[in-house]
């Protein structure tokens, strides 16, 4: 019995010792092959490597401001920073947390570009400063920025009143909406997969501007590459059965719509309504509202209210969160939502009668007057880093009769100076749009129908029938143009209204 046990014990011993021996050989082989290198060619690469890159195979937008590189080992930071090459160059800042490096761009990456990222020659961190860490396995990859694309309302022939998507990168035009819908306004979704638009249906008995309904159309851009999203598929989002829709705005979250509506039966019932996602639309409050804009945080709406602007939460309630009596209108918010530009109509200041002032207002409570114009402030847009403002203004020209002449101006917020860029003498009802990467400004030049009695559903805000419209592209530069460097203005080959860049 004892002998038998001993025999069996030896079986376990033999098996265990053999396994230990085999594993030792395997380990030795593994360690050896990790160290058997000639130059940069190792049998097995034992050095550090890039484990993940957050923009891998991604099409980045202006909202993608930083990428993350995760390494398999702690790296020598300065060494990595010196050896990281992005082409074309994208200036930015480095920050580190352990084995993770973040690179934050100074400004959005220009659209329609393929970038290559290369990291080679970087070393891992070594606490002993004299010895050098192992070299990283070379890492090379590419990523792209979104195609440069904009949307406009066609004005001529078959395209009249229809929403048209033009992809500048691919030089490709797509008509998104059917012939029977005359588009009056539109707002692209932040993910650019959809465009929300308001339109009249020519099949209605009495198509008129006040009979618009709000729809949503797919663009064919598919940010998540999931599901089938062919362009031109249309859903009705808000109908006009009981209430007429006057104007609307789409929040940055792509979920919330705020619509200014008026009761068909009771014209005094005139207020803002809100619709979250697929929920039913509901009244926000029963206060009459003027122009309005949803804040970038998608939780509040700023609306002109009597002699001031009120801030409302997007949950139904009557009391505003805040009220700014000084201002009459909000024009734009900075990308992060911490600042806005507002217009003071100078009603209470006799010295500034018939002028308008533009104010920079931030969430710290500061209100700084930027310019005062003896005309009208029509629109303003921040550039992406919130260092400059592009504004559409008018000046009064005194002659036999007063004429308002529009012009585009650049306001440099850092240098605190402003200058006109280009005068637009024969323009009216201009719509402008600054590219999400800040590199180009689109605007339209409407041509009116000479026949004052002309019929048609495409009309300016003052009610004149539109015959045609040109689209212009102004390449924005970092400096204010002057005699030596005139503004680069280019007429685009298509005819259309309200050109607007896709985000």
């Amino acid at each position, binding site marked *: 019995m004892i002998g038998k*046990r001993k025999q069996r014990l030896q079986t*376990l011993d033999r098996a265990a010792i053999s*396994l230990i021996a085999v*594993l030792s050989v*395997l380990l030795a082989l*593994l360690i050896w092959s990790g160290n058997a290198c000639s130059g940069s060619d190792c049998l097995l*690469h*034992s050095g550090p490597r890039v484990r993940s890159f957050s923009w891998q195979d991604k099409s980045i937008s202006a909202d993608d401001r930083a990428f993350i590189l995760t390494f*398999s080992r702690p790296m020598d930071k300065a060494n990595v920073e010196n050896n990281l090459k992005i082409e074309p160059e994208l200036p930015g800042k480095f920050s580190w947390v352990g084995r993770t490096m973040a690179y934050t761009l100074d400004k959005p990456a220009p659209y329609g570009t393929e970038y290559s990222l290369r990291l080679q020659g970087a070393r891992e961190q*070594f606490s002993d400063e004299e010895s050098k860490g192992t070299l990283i396995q070379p890492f090379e990859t590419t990523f792209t920025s979104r195609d440069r694309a904009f949307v406009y309302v066609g004005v001529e022939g078959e395209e009249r009143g229809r929403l048209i998507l033009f992809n500048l990168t691919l030089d490709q035009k797509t008509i998104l909406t059917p012939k029977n819908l005359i588009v009056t306004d539109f707002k692209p979704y932040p993910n650019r997969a959809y465009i929300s638009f308001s339109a009249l249906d020519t099949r209605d008995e009495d198509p008129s501007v006040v009979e618009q309904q709000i729809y949503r159309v797919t663009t064919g851009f598919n940010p998540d590459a999931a599901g089938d999203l062919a362009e031109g598929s249309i859903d009705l989002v808000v109908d006009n059965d009981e209430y007429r829709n006057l104007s609307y705005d789409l929040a940055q979250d792509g979920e919330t719509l705020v619509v200014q509506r008026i009761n068909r039966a009771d014209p005094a019932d005139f207020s803002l309504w809100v619709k979250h996602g697929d929920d039913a639309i509901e009244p926000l409050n029963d206060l009459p509202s003027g122009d309005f804009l949803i804040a970038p945080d998608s939780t509040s709406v700023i609306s002109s209210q009597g002699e001031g602007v009120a801030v409302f939460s997007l949950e139904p309630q009557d009391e505003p969160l805040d009220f700014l009596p000084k201002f009459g209108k909000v024009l734009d918010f900075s990308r992060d939502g911490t600042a806005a530009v507002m217009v003071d109509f100078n009603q209470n200041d006799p010295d500034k009668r018939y002028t308008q002032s533009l104010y920079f207002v931030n969430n710290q409570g500061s209100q700084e007057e930027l310019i005062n114009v003896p005309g009208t402030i029509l629109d303003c847009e921040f550039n992406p880093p919130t260092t400059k403002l592009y504004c559409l203004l008018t000046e009064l020209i005194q002659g036999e009769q007063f004429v308002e002449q529009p012009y585009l101006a650049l306001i440099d917020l850092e240098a605190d100076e402003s200058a006109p860029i280009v005068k637009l003498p024969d323009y009216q009802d201009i719509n402008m749009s600054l590219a999400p990467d800040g590199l180009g400004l689109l605007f339209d030049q409407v041509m009116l129908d000479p026949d004052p009695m002309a019929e048609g559903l495409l009309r300016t805000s003052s009610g004149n029938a539109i015959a045609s419209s040109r689209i212009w592209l102004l390449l924005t530069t970092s400096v204010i143009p002057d005699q030596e460097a005139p503004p680069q203005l280019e007429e685009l080959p298509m005819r259309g209204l309200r050109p607007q860049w896709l985000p």
Partner: protein
Amino acid sequence: MNQLYNSFTLFLSLLVEAVPFLILGVLLSSALLFLIDERQLIARLPRNPLLGSFVGGCVGFLFPVCECGNVPVARRLLVQGAPTSVAIAFLLAAPTINPIVIWSTWVAFQDVQVVLLRIAFSLAIATIIGCLFGFQKDPVPMLQPELANRVALLAKSQPQGKPSPQKEAVPALLQSGTFFLDQPGQPVRLDEAIAPVVGITPAQAKGRNTKLRLFVDNTVQEFRELGGMLILGSAIASIIQVFVPREVVLSLGQGPITSILAMMLLAAVVSICSTVDAFFVLAFATTFTTGSLLAFMVFGPMIDIKAIGLMLSIFKTRTIFYLFAIAAQLTILFTLSYSYFF
């Protein structure tokens, strides 16, 4: 003084994060011990070494116990006549392959890869070693003589179905193992203290009150013992983090091999419970390689100093050496391959 405050803050934060998992683990293990009839389970276990050790590794899902709780259970399995491969694989894998540990690893790392690799490596190592021990059909030669006698006796006299072994006439202090001195009169050996509870099956536990009392006793017992180990582990961890210069830790974290060795050594020394070790090791996540963190989480629950103490009550030194050496080699092999290839 400031460092002392820092380490105390770290210590408390480790505890706050870890205690809910510990309570959950203790409650679940106490509850499940009543719900599962281990004799029926043993009767159904496969006898094939490979299959047996794989199943043994997965049995942890039914007994969500820490490395402190698995030794008594493995010992019970052996005594009840379970195949050696099953018992060994259970001993090695149960602390990792159980729902609480998998969940806490996920909560700590939020990284599917880490969770899956931890499971895969632990299960592979347990299966390989379980298989190896499966060659040994008769477990007696690798056990401590007293346990061997008991197994041999039980094998002869009662094939299955009787409650746990009777107390021997040997004075408790002459036996090896971990003892509680809190019971008046007689020191109680750890596995003996749990054994009556472990041995109870639903059929034997008569009346709801008895069941409840046993449940509460077991919960308090486990929580007291494991909670103590957790406090000690957290204290060591926070002291290391605050008082050992970062350069020293950093220099250990470099190189795929040294970092793995350093983490395995740390795992053995710190003896932190597997339900909470993911939170502990997370503190090193920014300076150490992922391979070495995995080494900590795979090797730590299998063998640490506290577990060796517990294991000496079952196995002979030589057997433990085999377990230790092969588990260490396999851990290095797997985690180093991961560092090289991924």
